[in-house]
């Protein structure tokens, strides 16, 4: 560590840090546009100019003769950084005035307004008025930049983050700078739009409103959005994300920086893959089949399909869960070995634990198996080479994994604890001899294949907990409509054994409930579902998940030790 003095405050900084990072440690912001932690340094926006000096052993400070870019200047023991001198401030004002020269002041119709660095920095470091008397340059907007990306050319500040991203991270190099001087523009080659699988990141990287996501464009002013910290469930990389929602509608996902998970970015598959959570076909109402409700010998609200005119305020879940609990107990009593519960890799660790501990608490012989793990192709690694080839292993900057679920390792840890071994659903289907099934889904798309459908058949008791209708949900004795990833809270363990906490961002549609809440009540546990409390319990109960005992996993999550990386059941 090196001692650095930032505006008279002494801090310890990593000798590998630049001035921006060192100042950040002292709580001082050095404004910047072109610099980004994940990209190469170009030092071209000149927003981060600061005064840098060196403290001599005799206590005097030898100041450098001119301003230097904070992004490009490394620190060492005794480096002195000054960000609030008159010289720095005047230069910041001038740089901002210059950046705004040809920038249209169209904040009122700009999607970035509210999270725009040009706005923020101008407010903090700029001056109120421009001295430009001449007309601004006007340029054509480019909606053809990418399938998901639009370029508002005149808002661009030429930080070239997007260009560097496509060269250094995606390796696809679609974006480039054309023309020269103040006429410069970002552009693509004709007919080669920026459509790579990481393209959406250039929108996040753009510090101003130049690159906008067509998907989000004009949908919501950003200051209405509320942010929940979550994890993308698109693949086992487990990218940390923000879920941005307003009034229970998710508008966009954004990557959340996490050096332990994915870094700064996320793929478009994950970014735009959340739409299913607002799908009309979502299961929204718990249901008992006629046979079961007859057996319950009770007129249940839950059995009537909710119509638009249904003004009933009664909670349909009370009856359903009571019936479910009784049915499960009966079934376990009559044939514990024939009771099979399928745990989906989309469940959180807490949910898997609740279900497993409940069933194993009834009878040790109940069988727990792992639901199908969706696999698509092979791991997709970036940056791509010039011919689209994958990079060498030590050059990989981003991976989209073939395993398209968030929590196989977490669910497996629970299964290993309760069952001793991990059996895949497909593996045991043939000789299942099951008389009762408790199937949990929650997958982003249909997972009940014909063979699963056939294998389950018409058992004595069929309980389905899922978010989408399937042949199984159609004929389920008890249907428990559950929550998607945006509606759950809990813990996901990614491919490398990183346990990350997810927050619920929105409420479930209709009468659906997040799985944790369903399972907590099913297990007749007291109180409300609280992921943190269950997480601590899991940590205490399962030795391999002892890292969860902490409860609070922090912003970046914690690594759980001893996760065996077994080959995936296919």
């Amino acid at each position, binding site marked *: 560590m090196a001692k650095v003095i930032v505006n008279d405050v002494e801090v310890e900084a990593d000798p590998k840090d630049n001035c921006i990072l060192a100042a950040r440690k002292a709580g001082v912001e050095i404004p910047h546009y072109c610099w980004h932690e994940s990209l190469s340094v*170009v030092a071209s926006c000149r927003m981060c100019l600061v005064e840098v000096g060196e403290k001599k052993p005799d206590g005097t400070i030898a100041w450098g003769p001119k301003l230097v870019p904070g992004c490009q200047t490394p620190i060492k023991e005794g480096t002195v950084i000054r960000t609030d001198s008159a010289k720095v401030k005047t230069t910041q004002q001038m740089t901002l005035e210059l950046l705004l020269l040809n920038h249209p002041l169209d904040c009122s119709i700009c999607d970035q307004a509210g999270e725009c660095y040009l706005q923020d920095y101008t407010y903090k470091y700029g001056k109120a008025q421009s001295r430009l008397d001449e007309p601004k340059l006007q340029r054509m907007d480019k909606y053809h930049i990418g399938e998901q990306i639009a370029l508002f050319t005149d808002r661009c500040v030429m930080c070239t983050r997007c260009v560097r991203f496509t060269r250094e991270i995606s390796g696809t190099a679609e974006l480039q700078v054309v023309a020269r001087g103040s006429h410069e523009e970002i552009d693509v080659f004709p007919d080669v739009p920026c459509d790579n699988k990481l393209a959406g990141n250039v929108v996040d990287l753009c510090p101003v409103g130049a690159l906008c996501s067509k998907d989000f464009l004009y949908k919501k002013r950003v200051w209405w959005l509320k942010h929940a910290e979550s994890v993308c469930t698109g693949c086992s990389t487990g990218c940390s994300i923000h879920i941005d929602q307003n009034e229970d509608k998710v508008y966009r996902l954004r990557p959340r920086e996490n050096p332990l998970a994915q870094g700064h970015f996320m793929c478009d598959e994950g970014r735009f893959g959340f739409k299913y959570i607002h799908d009309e076909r979502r299961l929204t109402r718990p249901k008992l089949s006629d046979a079961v409700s007859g057996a319950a010998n009770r007129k249940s609200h839950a059995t009537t399909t909710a119509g638009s005119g249904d003004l009933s305020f009664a909670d349909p879940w009370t009856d359903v869960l009571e019936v479910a609990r009784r049915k499960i107990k009966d079934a376990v009593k009559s044939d514990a070995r024939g009771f099979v519960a399928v745990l989906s890799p989309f469940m959180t660790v807490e949910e898997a634990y609740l279900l497993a501990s409940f069933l194993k608490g009834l009878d040790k012989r109940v069988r727990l198996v792992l639901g199908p793990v969706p696999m698509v192709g092979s791991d997709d690694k970036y940056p791509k080479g010039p011919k689209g080839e994958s990079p060498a292993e030590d050059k990989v900057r981003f991976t989209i994994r073939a395993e398209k679920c968030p929590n196989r390792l977490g669910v497996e840890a629970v299964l290993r604890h309760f069952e001793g071994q991990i059996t895949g659903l497909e593996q045991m289907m043939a000789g299942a001899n099951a008389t009762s099934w408790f199937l949990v889904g929650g997958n982003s798309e249909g997972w009940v294949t014909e063979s699963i459908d056939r294998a389950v058949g018409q058992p004595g008791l069929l309980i389905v907990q899922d978010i989408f209708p399937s042949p199984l949900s159609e004929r389920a004795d008890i249907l428990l409509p559950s929550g998607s990833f945006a509606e759950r809270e809990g813990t996901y363990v990614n491919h490398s054994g990183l346990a990350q906490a997810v927050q619920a961002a929105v409420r479930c549609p209709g009468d659906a409930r997040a799985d944790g809440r369903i399972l907590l009540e099913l297990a007749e546990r007291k109180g409300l579902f609280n992921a943190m409390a269950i997480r601590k319990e899991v940590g205490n109960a399962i030795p391999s998940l002892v890292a969860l005992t902490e409860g609070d996993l922090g912003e970046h999550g914690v690594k759980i030790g001893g996760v065996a990386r077994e080959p995936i059941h296919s």
Partner: protein
Amino acid sequence: MSNDNFQPVLLARQNKPNSHTLASYQADGGYQALAKALKMANTEVIDVVKASGLRGRGGAGFPTGLKWTFLPKDVKGPIYLCINGDESEPGTFNNRVLIEQDPHQVLEGIVISSFATRTTTAYFYLRYEYGRCYRVLKDAIDEMYDNNLLGKNILGSGYDLDIHLHRGACAYICGEETGLIESLEGKRAWPRIKPPFPAIEGAFRKPTVVNNVETMACIPHIINHGPEWFMSMGIPKDPNNPRDAGSYGPKLYCISGHVNKPGLVELPMGISARDLIEKHAGGVWKGRKAKAVVPGGISMGFMSESELDTPLDFAGPGRVGCLGLGTAAVIVIDDHTSMVDVLYNACRFFAHESCGQCTPCREGTAWSTKILERIRDGRGKLSDIDLLLEISSSIGTIPGTTICGLADGAAWPMKTAINKFRGEFEEYIKSGRKSESRSLAGAH
């Protein structure tokens, strides 16, 4: 100082018939310096060049021998020498004459310099507009390969060298050494941030030296005649200023603008602008007086009439507020010319040529052009003058706001024109008159 008896060195063979051929060059004693250098150790060659006090002719005036010593000593892999023939500073044309008239003089210098720097691959970066130079150089290089002056085992010395001739694509910024390197690598010519300097990491991430064409032309003569001979010309270093490296040797002065006899003149360093105009360029045309003189390419700024006695050596122009000697391209502006128009033309050039990487240069050059356009349109405000000054003082490597010196070059004409001719600007704005809207020659 009398230059009357000065015999041209670099231009000695100018206008000889077939001066561009190898036969003609060898008949005049060409390639003897190479033969001599190849018998020396490469460090000895560097020492000779260092001792001569030769400073780079490209504009910055960095001591050439010193630049060579910055190369890492025990480098594995290649070292590259890039010859900067992207002569695009307005008013400058000495490289063109050197290449067209006497390419072998330059090429001999390149081979010697490559030998000194342990380079086995040299790149000659030539601006696209110099088509004739390209053809002449190409033929000259072919001749050299045919005569064992290039290729393997040059003159039996065991030293190998290849020279690749690379044509640019018409951008001023490619004259900046790291811009040149980027362009050579096939990228957009955006100057690199330093460090690392090219001597450590240059072309293709290898140690690289970038030298100007005229610098190369001086090398054979230094080898032939020795450093003392070279130091007998020019202005010695100022004993009171330890940072002054002196201005030695002959220099090609390009004289253009409002003079009777524009052209290229070779003189020892340090002639005054007035002497240059009066004695070597036939005086200001049409019997007029000079109003302003550009000492070394438009980016160096302007000297006023009263400053014309300044010696045109590396230190002289700086003493009167100019950026430096630059390329020693003297542009004379007569007293019938409006400085507003001159400055507009300069600003327009820099706005057009700014590579657009750094915000201050990209926007500042364009803004100043717009302001001057408005002033020329009769809509100027007196506050514009200070605004121009503020822009000029906030762009460039000297305040530290840009990566390369292009912005300094853009700022200096503004600074010097306004500081030295402020009255004219004020009068122009107050009068509200319009300049003729015809575009001026020079910038495209």
